[in-house]
């Protein structure tokens, strides 16, 4: 409990974010489970854009962590993160296995960081 209190004092911003995200997310989860019978399913107008939330959001999360635009094409492409991401992406595509994707991506990153580009 003291740990939690100390954390609260140290990072009030993080806790405010955690609580708001948590409450809204719970509302999303509960929405139709709670309202079933009063509202029949998601209206098509809402359903159609929702289909594109996972690929759009996930790609917007991933790509900026792999690619940094630099003055030259070579400098942009010869980036250990992009190379590791490409290898991991191929593994994800072939295996659809989260663990295998993380493992090959990390090993490739270390290989380029500590051996090839060292």
């Amino acid at each position, binding site marked *: 409990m003291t740990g939690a209190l100390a*954390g609260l004092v140290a990072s009030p911003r993080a806790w405010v974010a955690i609580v708001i995200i948590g409450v809204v997310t719970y509302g999303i989860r509960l929405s139709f489970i709670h309202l079933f019978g009063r509202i029949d399913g998601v209206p098509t107008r809402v359903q159609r854009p929702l289909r594109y939330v996972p690929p759009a959001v996930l790609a917007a999360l991933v790509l900026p962590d792999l690619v940094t635009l630099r003055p030259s094409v070579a400098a942009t492409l010869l980036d250990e993160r992009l190379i590791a991401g490409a290898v991991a992406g191929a593994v994800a595509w072939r295996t659809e296995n989260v663990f295998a994707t993380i493992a090959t991506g990390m090993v490739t990153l270390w290989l380029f960081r500590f051996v090839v580009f060292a």
Partner: protein
Amino acid sequence: MRGPALDEDLLAGVRDVSPLMLGVAPFALVAGIATVDAGLGLAEAVGMSVIVFAGASQLAALELLGENAPLAVVVGTAVVINLRMLMYSASIAPHFADYGRRLRAGLAYLLTDQAYALSVAEFDENPDRSRWRYYLGAAASLWVVWQIGTVAGVVLGAGVPDAWGLTFAVPLVFLALLVPAMKDRPTTVAGVAGGAVAVVAAGLPLNLGLLVGALCGIAAGLVTEVRAS
């Protein structure tokens, strides 16, 4: 009451979800590592995993918190990521319609990508199952592994040198989820557009790049769908 059936249905859920833990456990570890990387500690890691309990949004929020993004951007981004659960809620709602409000409120808290996908498939295949017990077996197992994994990640993240770049596992987790999410032309266009815009918009003020990229991706997917039909 069907006494023995409680264990049977519950255990079936636990059993069926266990292979998925191979993906969930490293994901949870990464969430713990990312908490340390954002300059936060064990209390925040546990608080977030218990209160939010939604991995992708947790990782995105942690990254933005670490970059000192405005609160509205942190919350807005996490909420957009979690909007997909609106679909799960609507899809699983008919299966829980007979249960009381309190039970439904509890089951809703445990709703995740994996618990949803697994349960809906099982309900279709095996109508005799106790739905809430099967779902609880799967969903609560995921909850327990998520909490343990997050704590382990905090401990691990504090002990590994920065040069190892353990936080690189965060985009790798998302990559593993992204690839199967791009399953047809419109969803692929949504992903490519969302990612490209996010890279170009990475320099935007208020860390708005992710949100702008995601919204452009959704729009691109919709336009592709409309054009195809």
